[in-house]
C-alpha cells in the first residue's frame, strides 16, 4: 500500500520515530514513512514499492504486510501518530500562527539565539535570517556547502554574533543544552569545540570532578580547516575571554590546518584567560589527559574517573579488537590509543543516510554487535544527554549479555553526567550487569580494551 499526502511536512527525525512505530503495528512487515525526497523514493523503490509521482514537499507512506484490512487499520493508526506530530509539543510556546521562517520568528519574539536543524540544503537561509536579525545561531544540520559556511561566518563577524556549525552536534549556553548535550553544573570552564562528542567527554569528566562549565560553544567540524580559517573558533575564544563567568578555556579539535593553527595560537596569546588545548592527534594528550590538565590549572583535585569493572569471567583470552562507535571524535581517540583493531564510526555520514544518528537509533550498532564472533573484544561508546536515546541500556544491555554469553568481551565508554535525563548510574549499572566493563573516560576504556586484546588484563 502506497499513499502520498501533499502539503504535509514533518522533519525527518520525527518521521523516523513514526516509521519505527509503524513497523511495530500488527501485520506490518515493512514501513516507509518519509518525505518524498529523491533519496527516500529510491529507498522505497529498492524495497519493491510501486511509487506514484511525488516531490520533496509530499509525505510518502508505503506499507507492506498482511491483508488489505490490516494495512488500512495500520494506516489509520499511522494517521493518528502523524496527527500527534502536528499537535504542538506540550512545552513549546503554543502560538496561533507559528512563524514559517527564523526571520519572522525573530521579528515577532524576543530571542538570544536560533537552533537550526532543517535539512542541509535549506539551513543557509534560516541561519542567515538569524545572523541578520542579530542572533547567534547553532546549525545542527550537516551537508551545508563550505562556501555558505564561510559566508555565514563572515556576516556573523560583521554583526557581532557567533555561528556554531554547521554540523555542530552540541552546545551549552548558560546551562541550556542544545542538540546532543549533557546536563552540566554551571562553573568556570568555557569550552570551544570543533568536535561534538569530544566536547561532551571533556564536559562530563569535568562534571564528575565537580567542576562546572560556563558555556560550551561548538564551532562545527570544518571550522579549523583552511577553507573556513577558524572564523568561529577565534570569535568563540574571544567571547569566552570576555565572559566574566569563564576562568579557563578548553579548546577541543582535531589538529587544525597549519595556517589556522598559527592564527589560533596568536589569538590565544592575546587572551587574558588561560587556554588548555586538546588537539586529537598522534603524540597529543587524549581528552581525559587534557581534562586533567584543566583541573590542575584550576587547582581542582583530579578524581578517579568512575568505572564499573566487568563482573564475570568472559574474555579471558586475548582476541582481536573491534570498536563500534557512535561518536566520531571518541572513535578517533580510541583508535589512537589502542593503535590497532577494526573501528567503525556509525555516526559517520555513510551510515546516517536516511537513518537517524546512532545516538538516537541503535539498530546498526546492535546488528554489528550481534555479528562479533566469540573471543573478540568489543569497545563501544554510549553517549547520554538531551536529544540522545532516552534509555540506551534497554536495547544494549540484552545485546551485551548475548555477546558476553558468546565469549565476547565488551567494554563501554559511557559519556554522561550524573544529571543527565537517562541517569548515569542506572545506565552504567544496567550495562555492567549485562557483562560489560564500563568507563566514564573513553581513554581509559580504550586503554583497557587494548590491554584485554593483548591478553595483559582481563
Amino acid at each position: 500500500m502506497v499513499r502520498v499526502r501533499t502539503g504535509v511536512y514533518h522533519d525527518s527525525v520525527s518521521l523516523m520515530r513514526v516509521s519505527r512505530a509503524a513497523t511495530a503495528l500488527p501485520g506490518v512487515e515493512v514501513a516507509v514513512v518519509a518525505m518524498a525526497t529523491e533519496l527516500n523514493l529510491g529507498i522505497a523503490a529498492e524495497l519493491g514499492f510501486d511509487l506514484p509521482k511525488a516531490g520533496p514537499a509530499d509525505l510518502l507512506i508505503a506499507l507492506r504486510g498482511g491483508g488489505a484490512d490490516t494495512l488500512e487499520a495500520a494506516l489509520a493508526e499511522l494517521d493518528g501518530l502523524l496527527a500527534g506530530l502536528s499537535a504542538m509539543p506540550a512545552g513549546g510556546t503554543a502560538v496561533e500562527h507559528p512563524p514559517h521562517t527564523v526571520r519572522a520568528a525573530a521579528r515577532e519574539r524576543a530571542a538570544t539565539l536560533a537552533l537550526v536543524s532543517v535539512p542541509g540544503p535549506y539551513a543557509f537561509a534560516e541561519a542567515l535570517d538569524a545572523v541578520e536579525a542579530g542572533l547567534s545561531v547553532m546549525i545542527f544540520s550537516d551537508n551545508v556547502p563550505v562556501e555558505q559556511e564561510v559566508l555565514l561566518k563572515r556576516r556573523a563577524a560583521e554583526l557581532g554574533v557567533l555561528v556554531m556549525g554547521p554540523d555542530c552536534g552540541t552546545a551549552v549556553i548558560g546551562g541550556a543544552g542544545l542538540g546532543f548535550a549533557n546536563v552540566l553544573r554551571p562553573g568556570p570552564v568555557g569550552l570551544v569545540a570543533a568536535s561534538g562528542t569530544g566536547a561532551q567527554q571533556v564536559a562530563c569528566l569535568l562534571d564528575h570532578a565537580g567542576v562546572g562549565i560556563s558555556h560550551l560553544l561548538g564551532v562545527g567540524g570544518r571550522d579549523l580547516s583552511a577553507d573556513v580559517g577558524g572564523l568561529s573558533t577565534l570569535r568563540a575564544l574571544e567571547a569566552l575571554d570576555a565572559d566574566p563567568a569563564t576562568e579557563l578555556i578548553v579548546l577541543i579539535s582535531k589538529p587544525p590546518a597549519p595556517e589556522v593553527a598559527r592564527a589560533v595560537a596568536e589569538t590565544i596569546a592575546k587572551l587574558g584567560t588561560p587556554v588548555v588545548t586538546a588537539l586529537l592527534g598522534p603524540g597529543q594528550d587524549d581528552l581525559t589527559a587534557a581534562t586533567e590538565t584543566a583541573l590542575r590549572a584550576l587547582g581542582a583535585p583530579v578524581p578517579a574517573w568512575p568505572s564499573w569493572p566487568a563482573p564475570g569471567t568472559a574474555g579471558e583470552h586475548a582476541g582481536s579488537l573491534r570498536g563500534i562507535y557512535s561518536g566520531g571524535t571518541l572513535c578517533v581517540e580510541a583508535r589512537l590509543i589502542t593503535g590497532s583493531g577494526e573501528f567503525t564510526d556509525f555516526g559517520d555520514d555513510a551510515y546516517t543516510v536516511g537513518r537517524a544518528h546512532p545516538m538516537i537509533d541503535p539498530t546498526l550498532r546492535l546488528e554489528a554487535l550481534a555479528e562479533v564472533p566469540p573471543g573478540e573484544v568489543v569497545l563501544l561508546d554510549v553517549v547520554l544527554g538531551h536529544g540522545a536515546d532516552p534509555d540506551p541500556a534497554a536495547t544494549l544491555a540484552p545485546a551485551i549479555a548475548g555477546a558476553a554469553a558468546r565469549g565476547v568481551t565488551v567494554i563501554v565508554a559511557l559519556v554522561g553526567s550524573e544529571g543527565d535525563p537517562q541517569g548515569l548510574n542506572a545506565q552504567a549499572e544496567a550495562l555492567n550487569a549485562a557483562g560489560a566493563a564500563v568507563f566514564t573516560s573513553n581513554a581509559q576504556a580504550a586503554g583497557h580494551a587494548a590491554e584485554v586484546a593483548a591478553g595483559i588484563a582481563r
Partner: protein
Amino acid sequence: MTLTMLSGEPEVITVGADLLGEALDFQAVPRTRVDWRPPMPGTEADLARVLADPRRGRANETAVGRLVSARPQLVGVRPAHEVLDLPKGTFLHAGPPIEWERASGPMRGALIGAMLLEGLAADAADAEERLARGQARLDSCHHHRTVGPMAGVVTSSMWMFEVRDAEHGGTAYCSLNEGLGKVLRYGAYGPEVLRRLRWMAEVLGPALQATLERSGPLDLRALTAQALQMGDELHNRNRAATSLLVRELAPEVAEAAPGHAAEVLRFINGNDHFFLNAGMAACKVSADAARNVPGSTMVVAMARNGTDFGVQVSGLGDRWFTGPAGVPDGLYLGAYGPDDANPDIGDSTITETAGLGGFAMAAAPAIVRFVGGDVSDAMAATRSMYEITLAEHPAYQIPGLDFRGTPVGVDVTLVARTGLLPTVNTGIAGRVAGTGQVGAGLVSPPASAFTTALAALAEAVDHGNGSV
C-alpha cells in the same frame, strides 16, 4: 568582543527537528518554534545564490524604504492624450503585455469598446476584425506610469487621475472609475457603457480638474490611513475612502462646476469604488519610487491581463515574470457561477503590492463574507503576509492588530521559502466579452511568476557583483 547570548536567560528560536526543540522544553528554555517546510520545489540553488548576494539587505532596505515613505497626492485630473504618450489608435491595458490573439473575453470586450469610443470602428464586429488584424497598438499600462482596474483599457480621450509623490517626485496615472455593473473595465461595450464614458470625458473629468485646481493637492496617504481605520482595505472595499473623498471635494465641486455639481457628486457618491482608481495611482507612484534598486528582491508590480499574472522586481528593471492567471475563488452575483468567471484580471493588485487590499484584510471585517470567510480568516490572511514582506507600513495601520502597520514589500525570496503566495482580493469579470462583473473573491498568483523571477535574480547576482 562580547556575545549577548552568553549573559542572561537563553531564549531560543528552533527550526527543524522537533526532537531538539522538545529537549529544550524539558529544560524549561523559552523557545519559539518555527513551522518550517521546504521551499518551493526547484528553488534551493537560486535561493542560496540570491540570499548570499551581499547587496540584498541594503538594497531591500532602500527599496522598501522608498515604497513606504512615498507621499502620494492627488494633483489633477487630465485627459490621457495630454499626459501620456498615447496617440489615437494606441490603447493601454492591464497586466503584462498581451496581444489580441491571447486576450481573454473581457479584455477583448474592453478593447472593442475602446475602438468604438475612439470612433475607430463602425460597430463591434468591425472593431473585432480590425483588432484581430492588428490595427490598434496595445501596450501595458505599467509601461506608461499608469494602472487600470480589470481590463484597464485606457484610450487617448479618457481623463486620468494624476497622482504625484511629494517625497520622491514621481507621477502616476489611473483612469476614472465608471461604477459597477456593465462597464468597460469588465469588458462591456454596449451603448450605455459608451454613453457613460463620454459623459465622464465631457463633464466629470473637467469638473474634477477644476475642483482640484481650486482645492490644491489632496493628501492620499493621510486619506488612505484614515480609510483603513474606518474598515476599508482599499481594494475590494473603498466605501470609507470614497466617502472621505466626497467630503473633501464636495464644497469645491459646488464652486468649481456649479452647473454639474449635483450630477457629478451623485455619480461619485453612487459608486463605493470611486476612490479605488485614485488609490491605485497612489500605490503605483509609491511602488515606482522603489524601482531599479540593484540587488533588491522586492516586488514593485503585480498585475494581470486576464491571461497572465505578471510581477516586476525592483532589482530586475522592467522585465515581467509571468504565469497563468488563476480563477478567483469567491461569491458570485445573481445566477453567475464559477463557469462564468474569467481568469484573474487587472492592475488593481498594485494595492497588494503597496501593502493594501488582501494584505490589509484584517482592517476590513465588513467584507470578509464577500470574499468567503470569517473575521479570523481575515486576521490570518494579513498575519501570514508579514511572513513574505520586508516591512510594516508606518502610516497604514490596522486597529484590529493593535495598530500594527500593514505588511508591505513582497520579497521574492520569502515567497519561495515559505510557499506563501500574496493574498489578492479581486473582482471577478465574466468570461464572455460584454458580460461585466460576475462576482468578487480571493485569488492566488501563480507560483511560477515568483520562481522565474527568483531564477532571474540568481542570474543577476553574478552579473551585478561582477560589474561592481
